[in-house]
């Protein structure tokens, strides 16, 4: 969910970019994703000072350096819990996570599960190129079993994770898939993911021109097929992604069946678009506010903890009384 500024100033895509030297390889899919992030932030009317981009480790983890927002380059696998702490402590901020497939679904898989259960209003963008680029091309959890990309000594003997199914199982309430060379669609997807009031997961397919010699830009374009047709296709027009608290059990089950079918397509056709938009699940902040009414106004980042002289503001008398012995 976004918090546009009331000020007259509107920011352009370049206000969200950074002139610092970019060290991604020429032709890297990351460029398409970062450009789409700049455009999406500008189109949503966000203020760069109120946006935090949180990165993991790896090539994608460098995304925060190429954003003109607050940038937090965290630890391998841990951007989701960092982002969760940031968002819960200051709910006014727009928080995006940029992390790779290994970061998100390998070393960080436990946090992916935990985040799904909480539904904190964060947008998680996964840079999905099937390899660990920065360490020279080892197999990521999204590389299909049996494939041997050029950085591997032997074919991968571990099965791939289906990221969309994983996100669905964990409880993400917005799930989408895009492609780094379809920037127009990607901008729309990132905007929708940010606007969704809850935890969003956007799987972005991208070539790694240096280490993934199998799933290249040409492969995604279907150029290896007898009848050349791009593999990356939009979801069927009649695919209904939206469910909410008013959806009937049958509607939810229908969606689940359709989601599962589309999420499993991989080969001649790889669907992209919004797979799930579930607004019927409370966010973590709403769950806290059900008990802690003051959280609507008083947050960890803005609470008054002392008076002007530094004397503690908390009044613990009632707790002392609870513990009184006489």
């Amino acid at each position, binding site marked *: 969910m976004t918090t546009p500024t009331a000020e007259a100033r509107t920011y352009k895509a370049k206000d969200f970019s950074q002139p610092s030297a970019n060290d991604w390889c020429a032709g890297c899919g990351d460029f398409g994703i970062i450009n789409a992030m700049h455009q999406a932030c500008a189109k949503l009317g966000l203020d760069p000072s109120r946006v935090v981009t949180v990165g993991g480790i790896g090539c994608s983890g460098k995304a925060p350096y190429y954003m003109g927002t607050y940038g937090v*380059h965290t630890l391998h696998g841990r951007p989701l*819990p960092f982002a*969760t702490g940031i968002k819960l*402590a200051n709910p006014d901020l727009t928080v995006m996570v940029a992390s790779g497939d290994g970061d998100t679904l390998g070393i960080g898989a*436990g946090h992916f599960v935990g985040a799904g259960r909480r539904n904190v209003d964060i947008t998680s963008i996964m840079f999905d190129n099937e390899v660990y680029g920065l360490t020279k091309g080892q197999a990521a959890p999204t590389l299909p079993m049996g494939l041997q990309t050029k950085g591997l000594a032997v074919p991968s003997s571990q099965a791939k994770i289906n990221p969309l199914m994983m996100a669905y199982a964990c409880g993400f309430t917005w799930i989408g898939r895009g492609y780094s060379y379809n920037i127009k669609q990607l901008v729309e997807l990132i905007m929708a993911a940010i606007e969704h009031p809850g935890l969003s997961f956007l799987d972005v397919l991208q070539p790694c021109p240096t280490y993934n010699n199998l799933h290249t830009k040409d492969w995604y374009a279907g150029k290896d097929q007898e009848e050349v047709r791009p593999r990356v296709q939009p979801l069927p027009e009649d695919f209904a992604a939206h469910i909410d608290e008013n959806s009937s059990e049958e509607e939810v089950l229908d969606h689940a069946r359709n989601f599962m079918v589309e999420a499993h397509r991989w080969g001649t056709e790889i669907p992209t678009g919004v797979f799930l938009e579930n607004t019927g699940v409370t966010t973590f902040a709403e769950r806290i506010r059900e008990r802690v009414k003051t959280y609507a106004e008083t947050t960890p980042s803005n609470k008054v*903890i002392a008076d002007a002289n530094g004397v503690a*503001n*908390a009044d613990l008398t009632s707790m002392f009384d609870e513990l009184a012995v006489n």
Partner: protein
Amino acid sequence: MAAESTNGNGHAQDLAWRVGGPQGSGVDTAALIFQRACGIAGLHLFGRREYSSNIMGRHSYYDVRASEIPRASHRDAVDLLTTFEAETLARHIMTLGEGSGIIYRTDDADVELHKITYLDGRYADDLTAYLAERGLPATTAGQLEDAKNRGVKLFKVDIDEIVEQLAEAMGVPVAIAGRARNTLAVAVSTALLDFSRDYVKGAVNKTWPGRQKIIDLNVEAIEQTYNYVDANYDRSDFAICLRGAESSEKRMIVNGNQAVALGKLAGGLGFQSYYPISPATDESFFLEAHEEFPTRDGGTSNVIMVQTEDEISAVTMAAGAALTGARASTSTSGPGFALMCEAMGWAAINEVPLVITDWQRGAPSTGMPTRSEQGDLRIATTGSHGDFPSMVVASGDVIEAFYDAAQCFDYAERYQGIVVHILDKALSSSSRTIPYLDTDLINIDRGLIAEPRGDHDDGAFARFAVTESGISPRTLLGQEGNAHWCTGCEHTPQGRVTEDPVVRETQIEKRHRKMELALREIPLEEKVKVYGDRDAELTLLSWGSNKGAIIECIERLEAEGIPARYLHVRLIKPFPADEFAELLASASPLVIVEANFSGQYAELLRANTGITPDHLVLKYNGRPISAEEIYRTVSEIRQGGADARIVLRNPYQ
């Protein structure tokens, strides 16, 4: 093993009462009622809870020390032992000395030691050998006979008979009357101690406020029990008694977990994330139960608590919250702390104010999850790979734990980094009566925070600006116009990744200068506190929860005219080397006391000052050190010829 009790003889009252039984059988409830009764009677209390890593059935026990003088440690020599089962009798009867007493059930009077389900084989074997030497059978009957020979008073109680009498008096079924068993067990003790039944009734009222039926049943249980004791025992040969004290001081009873939670709230905690682990979880539980609370400016404040999927998530989530300006912390024990280490380095290189509370337990690995140890000091002071500044603060009792918990946030924000607040299981589950804590004494200092639209250089805010003190104005995520980067990589003042050799040197030196500043700014009493005779040569030095036992030992030495002092270490890192060198120059002998195998603080002292202790007194069986143990050890040292390394052992704990 003689009782060192002084009560009942005209001296200041000091009673050591122990109740034991299977977990889930009501040991804690019985202890609570006993403590409340003593509290209402104006006595000071120290309670110690020992339990197993188990839900139901295994042995647990609770020590209550009720005294006229405030005490902060348990006593090994128990005055009155109340047992709920044969295992408690078997395990603890050896702690009883001449003149003390044991209360036991008829059913437990003759049980084979090796048939007691959860009594460790080693324990049963040792007892069997001990009894065999005295020609006694390896049964509880043999143990009772031995205790009688040692002058222990035996009080066999037919609990079922009292329950039946209670059922009859109340006109309720025996099953209903049986619900008052815990109160009844307490009342047998208090009746034998000739302690006024009104105090116990007061405790019952306080335990079940407004639930009249339960109160009525329990009050009648007290009456029936006192009658039973009068009818069945001759108290005249049991010299120990307990009297109320004249005191109108308003007191609360607080354990270590609660004290830290309260201190954190007073210190402005806004966010705590945690993963469940013994013995840390009770702290987070207390915070969750008090997530909204009043403020002195007339409003209501809150603390946001999150139970995470693991400790890595807990520490990184808290670090994220801290970046926004929240006072944030996490609470854990050794295994969880080990998982947090990588993130400690991240917080240090990003200069994030973050408090990690570590409740040490028996280690390594899963170790002894519910037993105490001070074995995490080494990892707390190093923590992560590389060189980075961090602080370690240790607390010795519940009062210190409260004020330190608040103080840790100040240190974290003033010096912009990690503060590890190190405590232990013994402190977590021992409780003490104290006067109401005073939040006026907490003076909050949030350190240097940047103004919005602060100094820009090279296109971004210079969050890690190089300054003489090492402190850079701290931005909070979301502050207008101060965008910059945080990163675990070495970085420029703006937070851009760099591997430039000069920038690297400048940044690592800047970060470490903050600790030099901390050592200059922090007053001596926050680093080390001296108890006893400041000029004495005989010097005991320790840290953490050994404090109560050592101070009691010092006082005992003082009463005997032996000058001694205790140096209680509070700031462990950065190391106040100059102050220690000065304080220890005249120490002779220097005795360091620690609850670990290797003397981890002694190692740190030697590394920083070159000073080694004359005697290293260690205990690592998972049980807290007692005043009696320290006193005996100091006496041996004073007699001469004591080893440089002395291990405190007690097979019957």
